[in-house]
């Protein structure tokens, strides 16, 4: 019996830790979606780029992946701004029969990024075997007679804490700084923002850069606990998207909650059903949300705030 509880709690903890990281991944996409109404299907591939930066920093310069956050984040920011300025803006201006051009564009970008990575770095799995990778805290160390054993991985915890810190910093930026407020204004009402003198074009570049930077940071945080290969972008794009939909389109608070929910769900699925079913599980959540709760978690939050 206690083994069941132990397994459940362990899975739950793993899920929450994973969820924190998923939230960070989803936040970038939610921000981009909310402000620019763009679905960025290259989101996961941007994360992959950051992870390669972290990997090579470790491999060549022995820089710890957590420190790479400081390198990869600005790099991804610049990449995001560049993509927005040179590719996305022109596409939004062109007249075409199908309005989904920007989605197709991001698919193309993703293809180029992941294939270039395959060509340059080969499809081998890479990882950063830092010496603290297997370090963990055990419940029995603190509570001698505990009926169950729980372990808390050091690397996972650090990644989680850093993800929370970054999320908090983003929160602060969006709510307390002028630039952040301009971004939110652009998301809420484009025309009003224009009329108020907000430089919308600059906000868009900033937002895409910020979204890329966030997922870049997430990538670095994933390096110590995961492994890297060129095609991993796709699954993380899926994750980002499910988190965003689960949270409610464009809602940043929703993305955070959505990330944690997905993390817990995947952890449970992995433990009780098996690892291979993760993509299907995500799709089921995706469909379930769209059918039963199209506004996502944020619509629940909103109706509670205003009362019935």
């Amino acid at each position, binding site marked *: 019996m206690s083994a069941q509880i132990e397994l459940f709690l362990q899975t739950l903890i793993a899920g929450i830790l994973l969820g924190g990281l998923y939230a960070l991944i989803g936040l970038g996409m939610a921000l981009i979606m909310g402000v620019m109404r763009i679905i960025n299907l290259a989101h996961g591939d941007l994360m992959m780029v950051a992870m390669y930066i972290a990997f090579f920093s470790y491999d060549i310069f022995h820089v710890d992946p957590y420190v790479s956050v400081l390198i990869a984040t600005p790099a991804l920011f610049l990449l995001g701004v560049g993509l927005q300025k040179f590719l996305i803006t022109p596409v939004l201006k062109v007249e075409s029969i199908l309005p989904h051009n920007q989605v197709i564009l991001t698919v193309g970008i993703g293809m180029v990024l992941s294939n270039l990575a395959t060509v340059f770095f080969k499809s081998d799995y890479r990882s950063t075997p830092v010496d603290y990778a297997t370090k963990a805290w055990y419940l029995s160390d603190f509570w001698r007679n505990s009926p169950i054993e729980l372990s808390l991985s050091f690397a996972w915890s650090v990644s989680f804490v850093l993800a929370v810190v970054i999320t908090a910093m983003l929160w602060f930026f969006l709510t307390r700084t002028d630039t952040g407020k301009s971004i939110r204004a652009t998301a809420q009402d484009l025309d009003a923002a224009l009329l108020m003198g907000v430089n919308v074009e600059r906000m868009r570049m900033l937002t895409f850069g910020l979204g890329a930077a966030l997922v870049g940071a997430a990538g670095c945080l994933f390096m110590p606990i995961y492994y890297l290969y060129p095609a991993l972008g796709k699954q993380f794009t899926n994750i980002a998207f499910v988190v965003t939909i689960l949270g409610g389109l464009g809602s940043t608070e929703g993305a955070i909650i959505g990330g944690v929910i997905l993390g817990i769900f995947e952890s449970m699925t992995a433990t009780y059903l098996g690892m291979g079913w993760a993509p299907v599980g995500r799709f089921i959540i995706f469909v379930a949300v769209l059918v039963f709760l199209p506004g996502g978690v944020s619509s629940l939050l*909103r*109706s509670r705030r205003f*009362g019935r």
Partner: protein
Amino acid sequence: MSLLEIRGISRFFGGLAAVSDVSFMVDKGAIVGLIGPNGAGKTTVFNMINGFYAPSKGEIYFKGEKISQLKPHQICKRGIARTFQVVKPLQRMTVLDNVIASAFVRARNRAQAEAMAMETLKFTGLYDDRAILSKSLPLGKRKKLEIARALATQPEMLLLDESCAGLNPSELNEAIEIIKKIRDRGITILIIEHHMKVIMSISDRIVVINYGQKIAEGTPLEIRHNPLVIEAYLGEAQSA
């Protein structure tokens, strides 16, 4: 019996009431104007009649049948057609094809649809433009096309949403003529409009909405002198 009965409809978005307890009736053959300041909820009322939103509260009856829960295409088939504020014709198709697409609702085959479309084009004065691609049309003709598309569904009632916005004076007169011709055909009209001249000159009755609630109803003369209406439109200027 009234053709359209709106009974106490409300529509909530989250906690915000866009429309609150609005009731009015539209008699067959009448032209009823729906006016109010920007953001008052007029288009939301249309969206509920049309079937895009179900009312959060209240019911809508058309020809005695409750239509509040039906989908827009079902409502169209029952005889209510509508135009949109932001006109978006089928851009890469000709004017004629645009109207044929609408005529298919009642037509059994393409030949019939084309005949009905031609007739509608002649009625709205677009016959000469029938082979032009709709994306090349100037605004005035695009608005006419929007009306033509709605008329091709052979409605008994037409909801016109700002069909006169952005028109120059001669286009405006043409629009008024077309609306009168539509009424003369026996089609009932409910029209949202900001052009006071248009509303006052063609409406039999006017319903005034502000902040989602009905604040007045009556003939154009009554509305023109109604202090509540005047205040709603000029409110801030008065108190300033």
